[in-house]
Protein backbone atom coordinates (compact mmCIF):
# COMPACT_ATOMS: atom_id res chain seq x y z
CA UNK A 1 0.00 0.00 0.00
CA UNK A 2 2.84 2.37 0.86
CA UNK A 3 4.24 2.30 -2.68
CA UNK A 4 1.10 4.00 -4.01
CA UNK A 5 1.37 7.76 -4.47
CA UNK A 6 -0.41 9.37 -1.58
CA UNK A 7 -3.38 11.66 -2.02
CA UNK A 8 -1.81 14.16 0.38
CA UNK A 9 0.50 15.91 -2.07
CA UNK A 10 -2.05 16.82 -4.79
CA UNK A 11 -4.63 17.66 -2.11
CA UNK A 12 -2.23 20.03 -0.40
CA UNK A 13 -1.27 21.60 -3.73
CA UNK A 14 -4.95 22.09 -4.59
CA UNK A 15 -5.69 23.63 -1.17
CA UNK A 16 -2.92 26.19 -1.75
CA UNK A 17 -3.23 26.80 -5.49
CA UNK A 18 -6.99 27.02 -6.02
CA UNK A 19 -7.58 29.83 -3.46
CA UNK A 20 -4.39 31.51 -4.68
CA UNK A 21 -5.66 31.49 -8.26
CA UNK A 22 -9.02 32.92 -7.11
CA UNK A 23 -7.16 35.71 -5.32
CA UNK A 24 -5.00 36.44 -8.36
CA UNK A 25 -7.99 36.39 -10.70
CA UNK A 26 -10.09 38.81 -8.68
CA UNK A 27 -7.54 41.12 -7.04
CA UNK A 28 -4.28 41.06 -8.92
CA UNK A 29 -4.73 40.64 -12.65
CA UNK A 30 -5.94 43.81 -14.47
CA UNK A 31 -9.13 43.98 -16.54
CA UNK A 32 -8.88 42.83 -20.14
CA UNK A 33 -8.71 45.88 -22.43
CA UNK A 34 -11.29 44.46 -24.81
CA UNK A 35 -13.67 42.36 -22.73
CA UNK A 36 -13.31 44.05 -19.34
CA UNK A 37 -14.13 42.31 -16.07
CA UNK A 38 -15.95 39.36 -17.65
CA UNK A 39 -12.75 38.10 -19.27
CA UNK A 40 -11.67 36.83 -15.84
CA UNK A 41 -13.82 33.73 -16.33
CA UNK A 42 -11.21 32.75 -18.94
CA UNK A 43 -8.86 31.61 -16.15
CA UNK A 44 -11.45 29.20 -14.78
CA UNK A 45 -12.93 28.10 -18.05
CA UNK A 46 -9.75 27.35 -19.96
CA UNK A 47 -7.99 25.82 -16.97
CA UNK A 48 -10.94 23.52 -16.32
CA UNK A 49 -11.17 22.60 -20.03
CA UNK A 50 -7.49 21.68 -20.25
CA UNK A 51 -7.83 19.69 -17.02
CA UNK A 52 -10.74 17.78 -18.56
CA UNK A 53 -8.59 16.84 -21.53
CA UNK A 54 -5.78 15.83 -19.15
CA UNK A 55 -8.17 13.53 -17.24
CA UNK A 56 -9.37 11.89 -20.46
CA UNK A 57 -5.78 11.47 -21.64
CA UNK A 58 -4.87 9.84 -18.32
CA UNK A 59 -7.87 7.52 -18.67
CA UNK A 60 -6.83 6.56 -22.20
CA UNK A 61 -3.27 5.73 -21.13
CA UNK A 62 -4.62 3.61 -18.26
CA UNK A 63 -7.04 1.84 -20.62
CA UNK A 64 -4.21 0.99 -23.02
CA UNK A 65 -2.13 -0.30 -20.11
CA UNK A 66 -5.06 -2.42 -18.95
CA UNK A 67 -5.39 -4.06 -22.35
CA UNK A 68 -1.64 -4.68 -22.43
CA UNK A 69 -1.28 -6.04 -18.89
CA UNK A 70 -4.79 -7.19 -17.87
CA UNK A 71 -4.35 -5.81 -14.36
CA UNK A 72 -7.75 -4.66 -12.99
CA UNK A 73 -6.04 -1.77 -11.17
CA UNK A 74 -5.49 -0.04 -14.54
CA UNK A 75 -9.15 -0.41 -15.46
CA UNK A 76 -10.14 1.19 -12.15
CA UNK A 77 -7.74 4.09 -12.80
CA UNK A 78 -9.13 4.53 -16.29
CA UNK A 79 -12.69 4.61 -14.94
CA UNK A 80 -11.85 7.16 -12.25
CA UNK A 81 -10.06 9.33 -14.84
CA UNK A 82 -13.18 9.40 -17.02
CA UNK A 83 -15.36 10.06 -13.99
CA UNK A 84 -13.37 13.06 -12.76
CA UNK A 85 -12.95 14.24 -16.37
CA UNK A 86 -16.71 14.22 -16.83
CA UNK A 87 -17.19 16.28 -13.66
CA UNK A 88 -14.71 18.88 -14.95
CA UNK A 89 -16.29 18.66 -18.40
CA UNK A 90 -19.67 19.57 -16.92
CA UNK A 91 -18.03 22.65 -15.39
CA UNK A 92 -16.66 23.58 -18.82
CA UNK A 93 -20.14 23.33 -20.32
CA UNK A 94 -21.46 25.57 -17.53
CA UNK A 95 -18.73 28.23 -17.61
CA UNK A 96 -18.42 28.23 -21.42
CA UNK A 97 -21.97 29.43 -22.18
CA UNK A 98 -21.76 32.06 -19.39
CA UNK A 99 -18.67 33.52 -21.04
CA UNK A 100 -20.19 33.16 -24.50
CA UNK A 101 -23.36 34.96 -23.44
CA UNK A 102 -21.37 37.89 -22.07
CA UNK A 103 -18.77 38.24 -24.81
CA UNK A 104 -20.66 37.02 -27.91
CA UNK A 105 -24.25 37.63 -26.80
CA UNK A 106 -25.32 34.01 -27.33
CA UNK A 107 -25.36 31.01 -25.01
CA UNK A 108 -23.96 28.67 -27.58
CA UNK A 109 -22.13 29.31 -30.82
CA UNK A 110 -22.48 26.48 -33.30
CA UNK A 111 -19.81 27.94 -35.53
CA UNK A 112 -17.14 27.76 -32.86
CA UNK A 113 -14.67 24.93 -33.23
CA UNK A 114 -13.68 24.32 -29.66
CA UNK A 115 -17.25 24.27 -28.35
CA UNK A 116 -18.23 21.68 -30.92
CA UNK A 117 -15.21 19.45 -30.40
CA UNK A 118 -15.73 19.59 -26.66
CA UNK A 119 -19.41 18.74 -27.01
CA UNK A 120 -18.67 15.70 -29.18
CA UNK A 121 -16.12 14.40 -26.71
CA UNK A 122 -18.36 15.07 -23.74
CA UNK A 123 -21.22 13.10 -25.33
CA UNK A 124 -18.80 10.30 -26.13
CA UNK A 125 -17.44 10.02 -22.58
CA UNK A 126 -20.92 10.27 -21.00
CA UNK A 127 -21.87 7.18 -23.00
CA UNK A 128 -18.94 5.40 -21.34
CA UNK A 129 -20.91 5.19 -18.10
CA UNK A 130 -23.92 3.69 -19.88
CA UNK A 131 -21.68 0.99 -21.31
CA UNK A 132 -19.79 0.30 -18.11
CA UNK A 133 -22.82 0.01 -15.88
CA UNK A 134 -24.77 -2.26 -18.16
CA UNK A 135 -22.02 -4.87 -18.12
CA UNK A 136 -21.45 -7.43 -15.39
CA UNK A 137 -18.44 -6.64 -13.26
CA UNK A 138 -15.34 -8.57 -14.23
CA UNK A 139 -12.69 -9.02 -16.87
CA UNK A 140 -15.07 -8.50 -19.75
CA UNK A 141 -16.37 -5.20 -18.40
CA UNK A 142 -12.81 -3.98 -17.90
CA UNK A 143 -11.76 -4.96 -21.43
CA UNK A 144 -14.87 -3.52 -23.09
CA UNK A 145 -14.64 -0.25 -21.18
CA UNK A 146 -10.97 0.07 -22.09
CA UNK A 147 -11.65 -0.56 -25.77
CA UNK A 148 -14.33 2.13 -25.74
CA UNK A 149 -11.97 4.63 -24.10
CA UNK A 150 -9.39 3.90 -26.80
CA UNK A 151 -11.93 4.77 -29.52
CA UNK A 152 -11.88 8.26 -27.96
CA UNK A 153 -8.18 8.56 -28.81
CA UNK A 154 -9.22 8.54 -32.46
CA UNK A 155 -12.21 10.76 -31.88
CA UNK A 156 -10.21 13.72 -30.50
CA UNK A 157 -8.05 14.50 -33.56
CA UNK A 158 -10.81 13.51 -35.97
CA UNK A 159 -13.34 15.85 -34.34
CA UNK A 160 -10.86 18.72 -34.43
CA UNK A 161 -10.17 18.04 -38.12
CA UNK A 162 -13.83 17.64 -39.07
CA UNK A 163 -14.90 20.82 -37.34
CA UNK A 164 -11.96 22.67 -38.90
CA UNK A 165 -12.92 21.49 -42.37
CA UNK A 166 -16.51 22.61 -41.91
CA UNK A 167 -16.06 25.91 -40.13
CA UNK A 168 -14.35 29.23 -39.82
CA UNK A 169 -12.19 30.43 -36.99
CA UNK A 170 -13.87 32.47 -34.28
CA UNK A 171 -12.26 31.46 -31.00
CA UNK A 172 -9.66 33.95 -29.85
CA UNK A 173 -6.25 32.42 -30.46
CA UNK A 174 -4.40 33.04 -27.23
CA UNK A 175 -1.62 30.55 -27.82
CA UNK A 176 0.08 30.64 -31.19
CA UNK A 177 3.18 28.91 -32.48
CA UNK A 178 5.21 31.99 -31.52
CA UNK A 179 4.26 31.59 -27.88
CA UNK A 180 1.58 33.15 -25.74
CA UNK A 181 -0.36 36.13 -26.94
CA UNK A 182 -1.04 37.74 -23.58
CA UNK A 183 0.70 39.99 -21.09
CA UNK A 184 2.83 38.56 -18.28
CA UNK A 185 0.41 39.02 -15.37
CA UNK A 186 -2.36 37.32 -17.38
CA UNK A 187 -0.11 34.41 -18.19
CA UNK A 188 1.06 33.92 -14.58
CA UNK A 189 -2.53 33.99 -13.31
CA UNK A 190 -3.51 31.49 -15.97
CA UNK A 191 -0.64 29.15 -15.07
CA UNK A 192 -1.55 29.26 -11.37
CA UNK A 193 -5.21 28.58 -12.20
CA UNK A 194 -4.24 25.68 -14.46
CA UNK A 195 -1.87 24.19 -11.88
CA UNK A 196 -4.59 24.54 -9.24
CA UNK A 197 -7.19 22.75 -11.37
CA UNK A 198 -4.75 19.97 -12.32
CA UNK A 199 -3.85 19.48 -8.66
CA UNK A 200 -7.53 19.43 -7.74
CA UNK A 201 -8.21 16.80 -10.41
CA UNK A 202 -5.24 14.70 -9.26
CA UNK A 203 -6.47 14.94 -5.67
CA UNK A 204 -10.01 13.92 -6.68
CA UNK A 205 -8.67 11.00 -8.71
CA UNK A 206 -6.49 9.70 -5.88
CA UNK A 207 -9.22 10.11 -3.25
CA UNK A 208 -11.78 8.37 -5.43
CA UNK A 209 -9.31 5.57 -6.18
CA UNK A 210 -8.74 5.04 -2.47
CA UNK A 211 -12.46 4.90 -1.85
CA UNK A 212 -13.01 2.43 -4.67
CA UNK A 213 -10.12 0.23 -3.56
CA UNK A 214 -11.39 0.26 0.03
CA UNK A 215 -14.88 -0.71 -1.14
CA UNK A 216 -13.46 -3.62 -3.15
CA UNK A 217 -11.42 -4.76 -0.18
CA UNK A 218 -14.43 -4.57 2.16
CA UNK A 219 -16.46 -6.65 -0.24
CA UNK A 220 -13.72 -9.24 -0.45
CA UNK A 221 -13.44 -9.42 3.32
CA UNK A 222 -17.23 -9.78 3.66
CA UNK A 223 -17.14 -12.64 1.19
CA UNK A 224 -14.41 -14.34 3.20
CA UNK A 225 -16.34 -13.85 6.43
CA UNK A 226 -19.32 -15.52 4.85
CA UNK A 227 -17.00 -18.40 3.98
CA UNK A 228 -17.39 -18.08 0.24
CA UNK A 229 -13.74 -17.82 -0.71
CA UNK A 230 -13.66 -20.43 -3.38
Amino acid sequence: MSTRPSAALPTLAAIVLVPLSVALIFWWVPDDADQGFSQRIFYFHVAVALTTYACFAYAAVCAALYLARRDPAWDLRSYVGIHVGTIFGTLVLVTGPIWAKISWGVWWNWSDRQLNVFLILFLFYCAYFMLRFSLEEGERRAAFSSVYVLLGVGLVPLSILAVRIAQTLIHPTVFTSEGTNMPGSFFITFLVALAGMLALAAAMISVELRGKRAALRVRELRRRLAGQDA
Partner: protein
Amino acid sequence: MIADALVLARLNLLLELRRREVVLGMLQFVVSTLVIVHFALGGDRGGEPRAAAGMLWVAIVLVAVLALNRTFAADTEESALDAILLAPVDRAAIWLGKVLAILAFLLVTEVFVVPLFWLLFLADAEAAVWPILAAIALADIGLASVGVVVAALAQATRTREVLLPVLFLPLAIPLVIAAVTATLAAVDGDASTLRPLGFLALYGTFFAVLAWGVFDHLVSE
Protein backbone atom coordinates in the same frame (compact mmCIF):
# COMPACT_ATOMS: atom_id res chain seq x y z
CA MET B 1 -7.66 -14.48 -43.45
CA ILE B 2 -9.38 -12.52 -46.26
CA ALA B 3 -11.05 -15.76 -47.37
CA ASP B 4 -12.25 -16.38 -43.82
CA ALA B 5 -13.65 -12.87 -43.66
CA LEU B 6 -15.49 -13.35 -46.94
CA VAL B 7 -17.04 -16.60 -45.72
CA LEU B 8 -18.15 -14.93 -42.50
CA ALA B 9 -19.53 -11.93 -44.39
CA ARG B 10 -21.51 -14.28 -46.62
CA LEU B 11 -22.81 -16.11 -43.57
CA ASN B 12 -23.94 -12.85 -41.98
CA LEU B 13 -25.65 -11.69 -45.15
CA LEU B 14 -27.38 -15.02 -45.76
CA LEU B 15 -28.77 -15.00 -42.24
CA GLU B 16 -30.20 -11.52 -42.77
CA LEU B 17 -31.32 -11.83 -46.37
CA ARG B 18 -33.16 -15.05 -45.66
CA ARG B 19 -35.53 -12.97 -43.61
CA ARG B 20 -36.98 -10.81 -46.32
CA GLU B 21 -38.76 -8.58 -43.85
CA VAL B 22 -35.42 -7.26 -42.61
CA VAL B 23 -34.39 -5.87 -46.02
CA LEU B 24 -37.83 -4.62 -46.93
CA GLY B 25 -38.25 -3.14 -43.47
CA MET B 26 -34.97 -1.32 -43.90
CA LEU B 27 -36.11 0.27 -47.18
CA GLN B 28 -39.44 1.23 -45.70
CA PHE B 29 -37.58 2.73 -42.76
CA VAL B 30 -35.30 4.91 -44.92
CA VAL B 31 -38.13 6.20 -47.07
CA SER B 32 -40.22 7.04 -43.99
CA THR B 33 -37.22 8.76 -42.42
CA LEU B 34 -36.70 10.89 -45.54
CA VAL B 35 -40.35 11.91 -45.51
CA ILE B 36 -40.32 12.67 -41.76
CA VAL B 37 -37.18 14.79 -42.00
CA HIS B 38 -38.56 16.54 -45.07
CA PHE B 39 -41.68 17.64 -43.19
CA ALA B 40 -39.74 18.25 -39.97
CA LEU B 41 -37.64 20.81 -41.86
CA GLY B 42 -40.77 22.65 -42.92
CA GLY B 43 -41.86 20.76 -46.03
CA ASP B 44 -41.29 22.67 -49.25
CA ARG B 45 -40.42 25.78 -47.24
CA GLY B 46 -37.42 23.95 -45.83
CA GLY B 47 -34.82 25.52 -48.10
CA GLU B 48 -34.10 22.60 -50.39
CA PRO B 49 -31.87 21.47 -51.98
CA ARG B 50 -29.46 22.40 -49.18
CA ALA B 51 -31.70 20.85 -46.53
CA ALA B 52 -31.70 17.68 -48.62
CA ALA B 53 -28.08 17.06 -47.62
CA GLY B 54 -29.21 16.87 -44.01
CA MET B 55 -32.05 14.48 -44.84
CA LEU B 56 -29.75 12.14 -46.71
CA TRP B 57 -27.26 11.88 -43.86
CA VAL B 58 -29.82 11.53 -41.10
CA ALA B 59 -31.29 8.63 -43.07
CA ILE B 60 -27.92 6.98 -43.72
CA VAL B 61 -26.79 7.18 -40.09
CA LEU B 62 -30.11 5.80 -38.83
CA VAL B 63 -29.97 2.94 -41.32
CA ALA B 64 -26.45 2.17 -40.13
CA VAL B 65 -27.77 2.01 -36.55
CA LEU B 66 -30.49 -0.44 -37.62
CA ALA B 67 -28.06 -2.60 -39.58
CA LEU B 68 -25.59 -2.63 -36.70
CA ASN B 69 -28.31 -3.61 -34.26
CA ARG B 70 -28.84 -6.72 -36.38
CA THR B 71 -25.21 -7.60 -36.91
CA PHE B 72 -24.74 -9.64 -33.76
CA ALA B 73 -28.39 -10.68 -33.45
CA ALA B 74 -27.99 -14.16 -34.89
CA ASP B 75 -24.78 -14.67 -32.95
CA THR B 76 -26.33 -13.92 -29.59
CA GLU B 77 -29.73 -15.50 -30.27
CA GLU B 78 -28.25 -18.85 -31.22
CA SER B 79 -24.77 -18.44 -29.68
CA ALA B 80 -23.25 -18.83 -33.12
CA LEU B 81 -20.33 -16.65 -32.10
CA ASP B 82 -19.09 -19.31 -29.68
CA ALA B 83 -18.98 -21.79 -32.52
CA ILE B 84 -17.11 -19.35 -34.76
CA LEU B 85 -14.63 -18.68 -31.97
CA LEU B 86 -13.93 -22.41 -31.73
CA ALA B 87 -12.96 -22.46 -35.39
CA PRO B 88 -9.34 -21.63 -36.26
CA VAL B 89 -10.25 -18.16 -37.49
CA ASP B 90 -8.33 -14.95 -36.89
CA ARG B 91 -10.33 -12.62 -34.62
CA ALA B 92 -9.72 -9.75 -37.01
CA ALA B 93 -11.37 -11.87 -39.73
CA ILE B 94 -14.56 -11.87 -37.66
CA TRP B 95 -14.44 -8.07 -37.54
CA LEU B 96 -13.73 -7.82 -41.27
CA GLY B 97 -16.54 -10.25 -42.06
CA LYS B 98 -19.01 -8.17 -40.09
CA VAL B 99 -17.76 -4.96 -41.72
CA LEU B 100 -18.17 -6.41 -45.21
CA ALA B 101 -21.67 -7.62 -44.37
CA ILE B 102 -22.67 -4.19 -43.02
CA LEU B 103 -21.15 -2.52 -46.09
CA ALA B 104 -23.11 -4.80 -48.42
CA PHE B 105 -26.24 -4.09 -46.43
CA LEU B 106 -25.79 -0.33 -46.56
CA LEU B 107 -24.98 -0.43 -50.28
CA VAL B 108 -28.09 -2.49 -51.09
CA THR B 109 -30.23 0.02 -49.22
CA GLU B 110 -28.51 2.99 -50.84
CA VAL B 111 -28.82 1.61 -54.36
CA PHE B 112 -32.58 1.90 -53.91
CA VAL B 113 -32.75 5.02 -51.82
CA VAL B 114 -30.21 7.40 -53.33
CA PRO B 115 -31.80 7.55 -56.82
CA LEU B 116 -35.19 8.03 -55.17
CA PHE B 117 -33.75 10.75 -52.98
CA TRP B 118 -32.22 12.38 -56.06
CA LEU B 119 -35.52 12.41 -57.93
CA LEU B 120 -37.44 13.80 -54.98
CA PHE B 121 -35.08 16.44 -53.69
CA LEU B 122 -32.20 17.17 -56.04
CA ALA B 123 -33.64 16.76 -59.54
CA ASP B 124 -33.81 20.52 -60.11
CA ALA B 125 -30.51 21.38 -58.47
CA GLU B 126 -27.34 21.41 -60.50
CA ALA B 127 -25.54 19.19 -58.05
CA ALA B 128 -22.39 17.29 -58.89
CA VAL B 129 -23.12 13.56 -58.72
CA TRP B 130 -19.74 12.00 -58.19
CA PRO B 131 -18.66 13.79 -55.01
CA ILE B 132 -21.93 12.77 -53.34
CA LEU B 133 -21.55 9.13 -54.38
CA ALA B 134 -17.92 9.16 -53.25
CA ALA B 135 -18.95 10.67 -49.90
CA ILE B 136 -21.57 7.93 -49.43
CA ALA B 137 -19.12 5.14 -50.28
CA LEU B 138 -16.37 6.51 -48.01
CA ALA B 139 -18.78 7.25 -45.18
CA ASP B 140 -20.15 3.70 -45.40
CA ILE B 141 -16.66 2.33 -44.80
CA GLY B 142 -16.17 4.59 -41.78
CA LEU B 143 -19.60 3.84 -40.32
CA ALA B 144 -19.10 0.09 -40.75
CA SER B 145 -15.55 -0.01 -39.32
CA VAL B 146 -16.32 1.85 -36.13
CA GLY B 147 -19.89 0.57 -35.93
CA VAL B 148 -18.94 -3.09 -35.74
CA VAL B 149 -16.68 -2.40 -32.74
CA VAL B 150 -19.48 -0.50 -31.02
CA ALA B 151 -21.97 -3.24 -31.88
CA ALA B 152 -19.63 -5.82 -30.35
CA LEU B 153 -19.48 -3.71 -27.18
CA ALA B 154 -23.24 -3.23 -27.04
CA GLN B 155 -24.20 -6.84 -27.74
CA ALA B 156 -22.66 -7.95 -24.45
CA THR B 157 -24.99 -5.73 -22.41
CA ARG B 158 -28.55 -6.13 -21.24
CA THR B 159 -29.72 -2.97 -22.98
CA ARG B 160 -28.07 -3.50 -26.35
CA GLU B 161 -30.66 -1.88 -28.65
CA VAL B 162 -30.62 1.33 -26.62
CA LEU B 163 -26.93 1.34 -25.91
CA LEU B 164 -25.80 0.91 -29.50
CA PRO B 165 -26.96 4.33 -30.76
CA VAL B 166 -25.84 5.95 -27.50
CA LEU B 167 -22.30 4.66 -28.08
CA PHE B 168 -22.34 5.00 -31.84
CA LEU B 169 -23.79 8.45 -32.54
CA PRO B 170 -21.10 10.55 -30.80
CA LEU B 171 -18.47 8.66 -32.79
CA ALA B 172 -20.40 9.32 -35.99
CA ILE B 173 -20.61 13.12 -35.49
CA PRO B 174 -17.24 14.01 -37.12
CA LEU B 175 -18.10 11.75 -40.03
CA VAL B 176 -21.48 13.40 -40.50
CA ILE B 177 -19.89 16.87 -40.32
CA ALA B 178 -17.49 16.02 -43.14
CA ALA B 179 -20.07 14.13 -45.20
CA VAL B 180 -22.54 17.02 -45.04
CA THR B 181 -19.76 19.48 -45.91
CA ALA B 182 -18.93 17.42 -49.00
CA THR B 183 -22.59 17.05 -49.98
CA LEU B 184 -23.31 20.77 -49.56
CA ALA B 185 -20.26 21.66 -51.64
CA ALA B 186 -21.49 19.30 -54.35
CA VAL B 187 -25.04 20.68 -54.19
CA ASP B 188 -23.71 24.21 -54.52
CA GLY B 189 -21.71 23.13 -57.57
CA ASP B 190 -18.57 23.96 -55.64
CA ALA B 191 -15.42 22.08 -56.61
CA SER B 192 -13.88 22.04 -53.13
CA THR B 193 -15.14 18.62 -52.08
CA LEU B 194 -11.66 17.11 -51.91
CA ARG B 195 -10.89 18.01 -48.30
CA PRO B 196 -14.05 16.58 -46.74
CA LEU B 197 -13.73 13.49 -48.95
CA GLY B 198 -10.13 13.12 -47.85
CA PHE B 199 -11.30 13.38 -44.26
CA LEU B 200 -13.87 10.62 -44.78
CA ALA B 201 -11.14 8.37 -46.17
CA LEU B 202 -8.93 9.20 -43.19
CA TYR B 203 -11.77 8.50 -40.74
CA GLY B 204 -12.42 5.10 -42.29
CA THR B 205 -8.74 4.17 -42.37
CA PHE B 206 -8.10 5.34 -38.83
CA PHE B 207 -10.96 3.46 -37.23
CA ALA B 208 -10.35 0.40 -39.38
CA VAL B 209 -6.77 0.19 -38.08
CA LEU B 210 -7.86 0.87 -34.49
CA ALA B 211 -10.70 -1.66 -34.71
CA TRP B 212 -8.40 -4.25 -36.22
CA GLY B 213 -6.08 -3.78 -33.25
CA VAL B 214 -8.66 -3.92 -30.46
CA PHE B 215 -11.22 -6.39 -31.78
CA ASP B 216 -9.24 -9.25 -30.29
CA HIS B 217 -10.23 -8.01 -26.83
CA LEU B 218 -13.93 -8.04 -27.66
CA VAL B 219 -14.47 -11.62 -28.74
CA SER B 220 -11.86 -13.48 -26.75
CA GLU B 221 -14.31 -15.17 -24.39
